[in-house]
């Protein structure tokens, strides 16, 4: 209230603003409310030009940056193959022949990339910018379950398809499942179901297990799965100790194992965590110990080649499970390893494999549905049965959008021939053995909801 001349100045300013706005409106323009747009095909970000944009949202910084980098390589390879470049990779061995190498539905595939930083918030911000700014019609990626679940929820709200990357938690297709989200990767329950019989065969029925578990959603669900599966085989669980995710020195967690009376140590850790905890356990001489008249054993339920490389010598002879391994001899795997190897000079990781498959599966579903509309694509994926993508016969279950396929039980190789040849496949566990019903207790409480086309 300093003086009336100021108020007038402000009024003049407002008037000017209104005049400017009016001038802008008078020009040939149109307003369009995104939430109710019907003119562009009835769904969000319907591609109108000659191209279609996919969003690759992977960790480029943070603890899972290695996996993220490998995923990005696979995405680029998949885009190349979809657009008719390269040797076509697994498109040639894929059981569905809808893809013709001319993009998706005749539109050239383009992509945008983002950094999830392995944080739910950053991942959602990145995915939102892809949807809002770049017009992405599908988001894919993720190298940890928390991020995958967060981004899956966002895609459900926004109305685009989410094709999950590496996410192993039961929750992704359990209590957090969403109609717009699909997962090709296996999960904690499947790891348990595949591993337990092998462990029983190798180590016997009478074992006492001690669990060290990464203290977050994925760690808990995997620990629960492994405990249940091994107890079903007669094992006893002595203790389960939660370790904070940021732990780097595990010696204080490993020391009590020695006197606990346990004769098996289960490490529910991933990435750098697993490398450190395993190294710690080996340094304590656990593997040379004899407890209850039996050799002390270590198990790492979720294995990856990148982790095996980090842990070096220590992984020799240690059992675990994995979604896929490049040494598989089927046609699909051979084709994929060949085209990946020719482009980048080394074999792909399981993270690379799953995201490559997801991209192909999405593109194929669009072709079969004849649209990019998330509801149409979702329908085409639900209950879809296929083979030739490296995992044998696979089905995308309609009830929870989880892929069911064979699970590999692997062992650290005793005599690796190269820095990539670190794991050997012990057993291919058939799909029927890792099957569960959608209302299984570990997966209950979720609701797919209805597919959301975002318009």
């Amino acid at each position, binding site marked *: 209230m300093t003086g009336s001349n100021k108020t007038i100045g402000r009024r003049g300013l407002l008037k000017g*603003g209104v005049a400017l706005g009016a001038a*802008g409106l008078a020009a040939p323009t*149109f307003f369009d409310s995104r939430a109710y747009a019907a003119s562009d095909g009835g769904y969000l970000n319907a591609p109108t030009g000659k191209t279609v944009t996919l969003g690759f949202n992977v960790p480029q910084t943070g603890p899972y940056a290695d996996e993220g980098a490998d995923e990005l390589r696979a995405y680029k390879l998949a885009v190349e193959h979809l657009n008719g470049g390269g040797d076509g990779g697994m498109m040639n061995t894929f059981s569905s022949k809808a893809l013709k190498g001319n993009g998706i539905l005749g539109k050239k595939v383009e*992509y945008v990339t*983002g950094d999830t930083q392995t944080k739910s918030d950053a991942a959602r911000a*990145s995915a939102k910018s892809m949807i809002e700014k770049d017009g992405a019609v599908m988001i894919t990626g993720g190298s940890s*379950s*928390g991020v995958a679940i967060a981004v899956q929820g*966002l895609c459900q709200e926004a109305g685009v398809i989410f094709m999950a990357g590496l996410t192993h938690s039961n929750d992704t297709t359990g209590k957090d499942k969403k109609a717009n989200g699909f997962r090709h990767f296996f999960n904690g329950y499947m790891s348990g179901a595949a591993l337990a019989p092998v462990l029983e065969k190798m180590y016997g029925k009478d074992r006492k297990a001690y669990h060290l578990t990464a203290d977050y959603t994925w760690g808990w669900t995997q620990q629960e799965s492994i405990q249940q599966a091994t107890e079903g085989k007669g094992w006893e669980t002595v203790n389960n100790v939660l370790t904070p995710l940021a732990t780097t020195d595990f010696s204080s967690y490993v020391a009590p194992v020695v006197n606990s009376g346990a004769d098996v140590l289960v490490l529910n850790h991933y990435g750098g965590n697993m490398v450190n905890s395993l190294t710690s356990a080996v340094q304590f001489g656990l593997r040379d110990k004899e407890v209850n008249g039996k050799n002390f054993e270590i198990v790492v339920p979720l294995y990856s080649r990148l982790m095996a490389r980090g842990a070096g010598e220590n992984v020799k002879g240690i059992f675990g499970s994995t979604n896929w391994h490049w040494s598989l001899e089927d046609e699909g795997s051979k084709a994929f390893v060949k085209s990946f190897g020719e482009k980048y000079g080394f074999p792909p990781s399981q993270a690379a494999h799953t995201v490559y498959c997801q991209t192909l599966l999405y593109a194929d579903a669009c072709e079969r549905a004849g649209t990019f509309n998330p509801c149409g694509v979702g329908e085409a994926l639900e209950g879809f049965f296929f083979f030739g993508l490296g995992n044998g016969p696979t089905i995308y279950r309609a009830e929870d959008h989880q892929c069911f396929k064979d699970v590999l039980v692997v062992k650290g190789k005793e005599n690796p021939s190269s820095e990539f040849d670190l794991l050997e496949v012990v057993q291919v566990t058939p799909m029927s053995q890792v099957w569960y019903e959608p209302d299984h207790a570990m997966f209950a409480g979720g*609701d797919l909801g209805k597919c959301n086309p975002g318009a």
Partner: protein
Amino acid sequence: MLGLNRNDTLLLIFVAIITLAAPILMNPFPTESSLAQFNAGYPDLMQRFVIFGIFAIGYNILFGLTGYLSFGHAAFLGAGSYACVWMFKLFGYNVLPGIVLSVIVAGIFSVAIGYISLRRSGIYFSILTLAFAQMSFALAYSVLGQDMWGLKGGLTNGETGLQVYSNDPQIFHSEAAPNLPHLFGVPMRETWIWEYGAWQFQFNAGFYLCAIIMLVVFYLSMRIFRSPFGLMLRAVKTNQNRLNYTGVNTKPYTLAAFVISGMYAGLAGGLLSAMDPLAGAERMQWTASGEVVLMTILGGAGTLIGPVLGAGMIKYFENIFSKINKGILEGWFSFLPESVADPIVSVLYLFTGSGWHLTLGLVFMLVVIFLPGGLVGGLIGAGRRLFRRGGGKAAKNTQPTPTSQAAE
């Protein structure tokens, strides 16, 4: 006007115009042009600009005025976020109760943490706040994220982040109301798109809600800066011992500043959840606390508008530079022969994509070394040099206060 002097009124009007016209100003490049990569005018990023602007404005009330360097403000941001999502879960998707509760919860939280931390000053205060924030983070990430009291996922849902499920009570939710955050029926996600020639501008309901709230709290912070209370806070920064010797009890003032800035942080957290109904524990991590310190220093601690500029700058780097991948760089330099383009691309790629932290680090270093007063200090300096005659007077108000470092 509104109890402000002329220069402050002008600044407020200027900020209001810039903020409300942001959807147009942030999209200077046509949608199809190759420079569209640098456009920032999409709803999510604009929302983040103003929300983190609010966070930094509040932080500046503590750090800029009293010099108390808190490394734990992310705890309040996170507490606000969780409070807001819980309101969604229990009562329904109207954002208003959520935002109000987030401010209250953050206020209570900051009274508790502030009361203890403010017993010390200087580096000890910083460490205490950092410890409390990391404690909150660990609680939210693991302890409170486990199934408890019959709640699946506990209070915070751990690593996954708290979100709304279709089987939540939502007792005030009606069939007519949109099934996503809304303000009396207007969804926060609602976006009007205005095509003007080759340009495309997005006017988002959520952004305008945040923008108006930011203008209100910006005005509030102006009043605090110019009040006797603000003067007292500056006195604390200049020499707290002298104040104590003259018989002034500074504790109530610093605690008030701490709580006010905590409530600002809670408001920002509530708005984050209102725009995107998921609250993750990382919002409480020390990196988030560090970010707001960077924002404030980058923009100019103790200045009114500086923190907002700093917040915008950091969010811009995080969201725009991180998306420039190798393919895009190669596209830019495709006119050059490959032997020339390849080295350029590989050098530039160090600074974009996954290397965006590096670029931000360099900018931060340059600002701290060459513009000790932050961006605002630099702008004022440049303005003075340009308009040597009239500049001195105009700049007086936004001038940073003498920079004596953290309270002794």
